[in-house]
Every structure is written in C-alpha cells, then in structure tokens.
C-alpha cells in the first residue's frame, strides 16, 4: 500500500471509455423496473379518456372483487392522503397555480389525467381490474387552441383562472420602438415551436418499500432524487427524513425526469396505506401521454435593421402552452430563454413578452435546452430571414452583428455578461469542415439546371446560459430552491477514493468524468476513484442534474472538496515530515518537503496515517475527507456554430439531411469522447424537432401520436454521419474552465436544419416551413409559393 503508483497522463482531457457502459451494455443495469421485492404489488392507473370533463362518479367496487386485486381507490378515496403536486418557480406575481392532485377528484383536465388506481398481485391483474371500474365523466368542451383559450367566453380549464391565462411577463431592454423608427428594414415572422414528446429510452418507474414505522425507500427513475425527497414529504406529510429516495440506473430523461410526478405520490401513498412494497411502471403509451411534453410555443418575432445588415433591435412575443396543470418548472421554461433571444449578437434594444396559457393537454416542462433552443430558433431564423430580405449571405449578416472575440467580457442587451467566446474561430472551423464555398457552388448549379433535388445550407450559431446555478439569481427570479451543488471526497484508509456527488446521471458519464477530475486533483489513479450518487441516504446533500449543470457546478464542488482533502493531507504531511506546512509541495499525489524530494509521503500513506489517528497534529480530526459546496456567481456560456446541408426533393417534398457539421466551444473538456457523444445525441434531438417529431392532439383532445408509429423519433438510418469538432475557449468564471455540454447540441441544430430547408426553397418563394418540415409541409409550402397550383 505504500508503493507510489505511476500516475497516467493527466486524466482531464483524456478520452476515457465510459465506465458506465460495461454494465449498461451487458444487461447488468439496475433499472427501477428490474427491482422486485417480496410481497410487492403492482399499480395501474385508470386515466381519463376525456380531455375535459366533470367527474360525476367513479365506482371502483367491481374492481375490488377481482382476482389478485388488493386495493382499488378513486381520487376521492385518496384526496386526504396528499396535497397538490408542486410548482417550484413563481415566474411572475400574477402566476396562477391551481391545485394539482395526483388523482383528479372534481374535473379531468387532459386525456390521461388519473382518476383511480388499482393495486394487485400482478401487473396483468391490475390492468384487467381497470376495466371493471365504472365512471361517469360529463364532457366539457376542451380548450386546445392557445389563441382561442384566452378569448372571453372560452371554456375554462381551471374555473378560477380567467381566460386560461396562467401568467404574463414582459421585459424591455433599450428603446425598441426607437429602433423601429430608425430601421430601414423590418422583418416579422410567426414561428410555431411545436410540442414534443421527450421519449427517454427508459419509461418511468417507481418502487416504494415500507422499511419501518412510516419509513420508506423509494426507487424512482428520476433526475432529481433530492427534489423528490423534499416534495414527497411536502405532498404526503411523511417526514422528510423517513423518505429515502434512490435514483438507480436512469435511462434518459432530457428534462422529462426533472419532475415530481403523480405516480411517485401514488406509489408512496399506497405503500403507506397497504404496508407492502408497491411498483408502478409506465407503459410506452403512458410515456407518450402522461410524461411531460416539451416546447409548444407560438413565437411572434420582429427584427429591425439598417440596410447594411446591422441589427438594431428584436421584439419577441410568446404564447406558451402550459398544458392542464403546472408541473415542477412549467411556467419557467419559456422564460428560461428570455435572456437568450439576442443570441451572440450585439444590438441595442430587445422587448419580450410572454403569456402562459392553460389548455386541456399534458403539461409542458423542461425538455433538453429548456427555453434556450426556443430562443435560439427565433434569433437564428430571423438572421436568415433578414439576410434574405437584404440579399446578403446569411454568414455575412451574422459576422456583422456578432460579438468579436476581443470584445469579451461583453454584456448583452438582455443584461447577461458573457465572459468568453470566439465565434469567429468556431464558425471558420465549421465552414472549413463543411466545404461551404464548394457547396454554395453546387447549390447554384442545381438551381441553374432546375434540378428536382435542391440543396440547402443552413447556419446556426448559438450560445446558452449553462450551469444552472447562481442561487442568488434563482432566488431573484422566483425559484423555490438554490442552485449550488455539493461533493464529498474521501480518501479511504487503503488509499482509494470515494467521491460523493449530489448530482446523479441519467445517461451522462458522471462516474467517469467525475473520477477523472478527482484523480487529477488528488494525484491518484483513475481506477482508484469511485463515484457515489443518486441516493439521499448516501449522498444526502445535492440539487441534482438539469440545465447542463452537473459539471460546471457539481464538478467544481468536487474540485473544491479535493482541494480541502489536499490541504488536510498537507497539514498531516508537514507534521509527519517535520517541516512547516508552507514548505510542503504537492504534486502527482505526493507531498514532499521543498528542496528535499526524498522526504515525501504519498496521499495514500497519509490517508492510512490519518485513519489510525496515532499521531495527528493538534486539532486535526482523523480520516482524510473534504466536503464542499459550489455555488457559482454567474452562468457559463458555451457556444458554437452548426451547419446543416439538406437535399429537398421538390417533387415529393422529401427532406434528407445530407451533411452536418457541429463545432462547439464548451470550454475546457474533461473527456472528449463524452463531449462528442453529448453533441451527437443533442444534434439528433434538435434535428428531430426540425424534421420529424411532433405531438399532435385531435380536435377532441386525444393525443393521436400516442405511439412511435406516429410519433417519429429518427433512427441512425435517417441521418448522416455527424462531423464534430471543437474550439476551446476556457470559461474564465470557474477554475476548471468548463462550460457544460448537455444541451448544446440540441440548441443550434433545430434552426440550422430549418434554415437549410428554407434556403433550399428560397428561390421558389418559400420563406418559412413549419416544423417539423415533413414532406407534406414542404410540398404544401411549395404549392403555396407557386400560387396554389399543384
């Protein structure tokens, strides 16, 4: 144990294979649904088939007598067992937060709203028993169209929310109307940022085991075990310390598991009532129907500019579909993008308004990017539209307006201070990788010869505010919690290391990248570090994963905690080596006396010495442990330039993504392979919004894209190879220089792909295609541009 191990090359920056993968790809995962406990009952939820209606009766008695059925309960039966599910962000003073019980009692407000539950000895028996529940719902006219919802006399989703208006919000930066007067060009567009289904690979699942007197362990497929613990205590009245929440392996979330769901409360309350373990697992149809949806905004945008392409101002009016109830962050999502509408550009005025509207649909909430893709879509589409209006190359307009690398730090018109960036470098690299000039020539040639298949090149730059933290900022904007993150680093007696993090992954690579960070900070081998997370008992302090914060906030906490360990070890080393602390040098895991390199102790030796406590310096406690909480003062700002090339068949409307280049600047990179994976996944998700995916409700409020037959998640067969590269401009606001990458790919890819489609069709007179740019929509846009002739 005393041998000083050779440390490999620096861990940070090396493309370590993901430690998580071996068990993920060999079937040794512990998904929540894999958990089976003795005596466990299975729960199934009876869901409203009606989008809007008054519950006249729910009679569960016939279900109670069926084989295997242990309990059948209606919303009314359970009404006293819980309170309303939480909303954590009071975005405005006029925000309406109507009650949201886990099971409806008075009205149903969307197709899928739970009205009763059955617990049975098998899942099959539970589902069978649902058929025996008698209920009578008096249908009410559904509220499905946002513009109609706010009209006087429209039906009300919540009787006490007039005009279905959830909140209104405005921001003014600079004097927009003055820019309008001076403007030589004004371009307006209306964009529909459609509703999306997050489609995580693992549907949700919850298991609750009673472990003592009113004590429970809950396994749940969540991004936010700490939030679940807090809010389950608040919703059910069970003391917080009696609820242990574990997020085992979690198979994707994209924001959809940043949530407190009805089924978590249902499972917990049934475990409490029945005293046995309870499991609920979502079917894929339920995942489409009752797991939160993303986006769903109508965006009116107006940009003012001078003839030379200088942007003066941007005005954006949003109406945002909340769905039927407010989930954890619902009202904040459209506003999370409020500062991002100016993108990477310099201009003098920006107005923004947003109205949140209740409808009889599933709630919307955070979906990869959460507000920032929506904002980037508007500014990047508008830059293209402005370029077209001015007859300029879309790149030229961007160059003319973006913040140059020598202008950082730069405070945008929306008031954010961007610390660093190099938009020129990222863009130049992207153009080079794409072969931009050659493709423009190819495009011109196809246009000249009237080729059936036209080429379109789409550009999108982006930046985003990452590392959702500054607690002060969160407080000022009405968020209920802080944004710090915690870490504990322990060097065990035998010199191995445990890193405890308050953020747990749902498909990222915390166990790999956090170990890389700690290995470097402590000078120990990567293999010697284990990362512990996702259990409120073993990692009790934390604020979980969302908003590209795990590295920029949680990673920094690990750096800080490691520093504390090193400081403590240094004190011990000085004691053991009989020198002054200031003379102890630390390098590669070894503490040595300045000028006497042979007089040295490894961190492993010191860990054991600390553990024995035989000879500690005065006042020092045994065990080499450091704890830290990191709460950054500001956001981090990754950026990048994405280029998409599409081929559009002008006869059929088919759009094929032919080529895609993403050059991202996410600051310092811990593990390039992980970053590349994040960019690939993000790009595909963004392109999916542009070209494939859309959640559709019919006129009665039925979700008609209720399976993957109709909700089209693209597969690798639908996409080209994605070329990725990076520029690296370290963040100046944290010691690691990191910025975050979890959402980056999704943000630029949607406007890049749509810009490419519109670019291909511009000569035909098309200046927008509604997302997703399906073949029929392209064909219709062409027909319309041609004057309706087919």
């Amino acid at each position, binding site marked *: 144990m005393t041998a000083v191990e050779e440390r490999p090359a620096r861990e940070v920056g090396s493309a370590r294979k993901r430690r998580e993968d071996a068990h993920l790809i060999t079937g040794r995962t512990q998904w929540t649904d894999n958990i089976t406990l003795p005596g466990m009952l299975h729960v199934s939820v009876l869901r409203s088939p009606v989008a809007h209606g008054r519950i006249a009766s729910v009679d569960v008695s016939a279900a109670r007598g069926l084989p295997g059925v242990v309990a059948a309960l209606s919303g009314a039966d359970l009404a006293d067992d819980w309170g309303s599910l939480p909303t954590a962000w009071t975005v405005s003073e006029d925000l309406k937060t109507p009650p949201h019980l886990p099971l409806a009692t008075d009205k149903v407000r969307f197709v899928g709203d739970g009205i009763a539950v059955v617990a049975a000895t098998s899942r099959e028996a539970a589902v069978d028993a649902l058929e025996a529940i008698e209920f009578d719902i008096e249908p009410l006219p559904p509220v499905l169209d946002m513009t109609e919802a706010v009209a006087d006399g429209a039906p009300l989703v919540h009787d006490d929310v007039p005009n279905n208006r959830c909140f209104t919000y405005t921001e003014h930066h600079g004097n927009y109307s003055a820019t309008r007067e001076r403007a030589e060009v004004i371009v307006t567009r209306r964009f529909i940022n459609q509703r999306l289904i997050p489609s995580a690979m693992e549907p949700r699942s919850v298991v609750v085991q009673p472990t003592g007197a009113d004590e429970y362990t809950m396994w749940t497929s969540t991004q936010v075990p700490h939030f679940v613990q807090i809010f389950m205590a608040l919703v059910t009245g069970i003391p917080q310390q009696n609820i242990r929440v574990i997020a085992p392996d979690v198979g994707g979330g994209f924001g959809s598991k940043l949530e407190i769901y009805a089924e978590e409360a249902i499972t917990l309350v049934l475990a409490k009532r029945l005293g046995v373990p309870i499991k609920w697992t979502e079917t894929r149809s339920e995942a489409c129907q009752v797991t939160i949806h993303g986006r769903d905004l109508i965006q009116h945008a107006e940009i003012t500019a001078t003839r030379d392409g200088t942007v003066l101002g941007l005005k954006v009016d949003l109406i945002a579909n909340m769905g039927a109830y407010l989930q954890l962050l619902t009202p904040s999502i459209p506003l999370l993008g409020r500062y991002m509408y100016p993108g990477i550009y310099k201009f003098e005025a920006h107005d923004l308004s947003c109205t949140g509207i209740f409808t009889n649909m599933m709630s919307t909430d955070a979906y990869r990017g959460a507000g920032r893709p929506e904002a980037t879509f508007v500014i990047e589409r508008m830059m293209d539209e402005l370029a077209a209006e001015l007859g300029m190359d879309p790149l030229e307009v961007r160059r003319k307006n973006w913040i140059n690398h020598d202008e950082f730090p730069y405070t945008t018109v929306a008031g954010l201070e961007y610390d660093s960036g190099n938009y020129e470098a990222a863009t130049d690299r992207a153009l080079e990788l794409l072969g931009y000039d050659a493709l423009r020539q190819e495009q011109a040639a196809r246009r000249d010869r009237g080729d059936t298949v036209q080429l379109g090149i789409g550009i999108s730059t982006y930046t985003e505010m990452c590392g959702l933290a500054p607690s002060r900022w969160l407080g000022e904007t009405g968020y209920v919690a802080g944004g710090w993150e915690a870490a504990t680093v322990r060097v065990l007696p035998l010199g191995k290391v445990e890193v405890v993090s308050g953020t747990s992954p749902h498909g990222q690579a915390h166990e790999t990248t956090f170990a890389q960070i700690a290995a470097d900070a402590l000078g120990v081998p990567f293999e010697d570090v284990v990362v512990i997370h996702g259990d409120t008992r073993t990692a009790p302090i934390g604020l979980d994963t969302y908003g590209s914060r795990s590295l920029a906030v949680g990673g920094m906490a690990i750096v800080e905690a490691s520093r504390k360990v090193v400081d403590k070890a240094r004190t011990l080393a000085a004691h053991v080596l009989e020198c002054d602390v200031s003379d102890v040098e630390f390098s590669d895991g070894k503490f040595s006396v300045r000028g006497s390199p042979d007089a040295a102790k490894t961190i492993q030796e010191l860990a054991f010495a600390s553990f024995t406590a035989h000879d500690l310096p005065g006042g020092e406690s045994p065990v080499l442990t450091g704890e830290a909480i990191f709460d950054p003062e500001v956001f981090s700002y990754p950026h990048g330039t994405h280029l998409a090339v599409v081929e559009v068949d002008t*006869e059929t409307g088919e759009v094929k993504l032919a080529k895609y280049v993403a050059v991202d600047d996410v600051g310092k990179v811990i593990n390039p392979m992980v970053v590349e994976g994040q960019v690939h996944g993000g790009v595909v998700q963004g392109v999916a919004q542009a070209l494939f995916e859309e959640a559709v409700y019919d006129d009665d409020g039925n979700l008609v894209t209720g399976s993957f037959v109709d909700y089209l998640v693209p597969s690798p067969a639908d996409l080209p190879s994605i070329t990725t590269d990076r520029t690296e401009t370290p963040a100046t606001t944290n010691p690691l220089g990191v910025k975050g990458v979890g959402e980056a790919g999704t943000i630029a890819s949607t406007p890049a792909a749509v810009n490419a489609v519109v670019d291909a069709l511009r000569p035909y007179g098309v200046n927008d295609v509604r997302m997703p740019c399906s073949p029929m929509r392209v064909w219709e846009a062409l027909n319309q541009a041609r004057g309706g002739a087919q």
Partner: protein
Amino acid sequence: MIPAQFEYVRAGSVDEAVSALSEDAKVLAGGQSLIPLMRLRLAYPEVLVDVSRVEEMRGVREEGDRLVIGAATTHDEVLRDPLVRTHCPVIAEVTATVADPAVRHRGTFGGSIAHADPAGDLPALALALDATMTIAGRGGRREVPAAEFFVDYLQTAVAPEEVLVSVSLPKLSEGWGHRYEKFNRSAQAWAMVGAVAVVQRSNGTIGSARIGLVNVGSTPVRAAAVEAALAGADATPEAVAAAAEAATEGLNPTTDIHASADYRAHLAHVLTRRAVVAAAGM
C-alpha cells in the same frame, strides 16, 4: 401495455392449426402486427395458434415456372433466398424495405399478406405479381388469386377457421425489370405511399407493366389504368410520365396526420412514374 389473457397453441402441422382455429382464435406467425394490437387491448383473441414451426409453411420452393413461398417464412429468409434472388428478385427488393432487421427476422411473408394492411409492402407486391394464395380449412384447401384475396381493410378471403399456407408467385424471365419506390417519413416507418413496378421492355417499347400501389386506399391496388396506358407505349420518360397521370384513377386516397388525400394522390403519381422509369431501365 399488457395483453388480455389468451390461450396458446403451437401447431405442428397445417391440420393441427386448422383444427385449433375458431371464430375467437387468431393465427400467430411472426406476431409483428398482432402482438402490438393485443398489447394495446385492441385485439383480444381467446386463442393464438402459432404456425411459426409448421414445417410445410416454411421456406421457398420451385414449382415449374412459379415460386412457392411458405406463409411462415420470415422476411429475412425470403430476401436472402437464392431462388427468390434468381427468379423473382423484386420480392427481395420489396421485402428488404419491411420495417427493420429485428422485425424482418420475426415477421413473415404470409403474415404480412394475411394481415392485409394496405400500407404493407407485400400485399401490393402480391397483387402486382398476380400471386395465388393457398388457404387451408377444415374442408380442405383452396386457391385464391390475389385479385380476389384482398377484400377490404384488413379483410382477406381467409375465413376465421382457415389459415394461409403458402403464396405462389411467377418467376420473371430476363426481360423484366423492377423497382419499388417506397416513400416513408422515417426509415422504419410504414409507407405513406409506395409503388412497385415490374416492367417488361423490348425494342424501345414497354411490353407489359404490372404496378401495385401501397397505402392509397383500403386495400392494396393495381394501377390498372397506368398498366393499360403503358402496354405498347414508347419506353421514354415522357410516355411513362403521361401514363402515370392515371395512377390514382378511380381511387380515393386517405388522409391521416402524415399525409392528406391530395398529397397521397400526388405521391402516387410521382412514385408510379419513378418506379416504372427505373424498372424499365430508362
């Protein structure tokens, strides 16, 4: 989701299968359409009769100038079969587009035809090739030509107590070309519209053309008017384009969330033209 309870019978022979069938039973082959319906409880047969191991219903064999494909032969087996590739490669071309590899390893040629989904690839192919279906019932066996097989939406000439045993298709000699133009929104999706063309070309003219259309009505259909217009026509893109205008004559294409009736009709024209042009080697 969770299917309702059912009984399962594994048939060892066609006779066993037939004797296990009833009004409330369904034949299970690859299960790629039936099982999802059952899981959603939109289908709840009381008995499933599994024919996937009935020897007689598997594999491809020659019978004179025809190929006979056992109904329970998987798509993957069909598209790799040397007889198919030699004598009727259009079958392999179309089969290769069915869903994805996982589905093709379970789903069967006969299952797809017996399910008779107008959006399926194989029913239109069977129709275009004038296939003959062999159906077994308690009273023995009968042969039904494709033109009489597809009765209506998901409805075929196979009665509840019957099972489709095999499908007989003609070998196509040297002078025939083929092309399947499948148009879908994502690689694994069902065809929004499809056109399969088998064309015989000689001396600059089109001798004969057979065209099947996918997903333009409640059954697969033959583009009979286009076939008639093409017979003896010049083998030029212009002549084909003119003939293809008749692709949806007499049809009433459907509207769904992915495609309106107008758009389907438009696609039927374009895809028919493209399929014929390619099949004729232009």
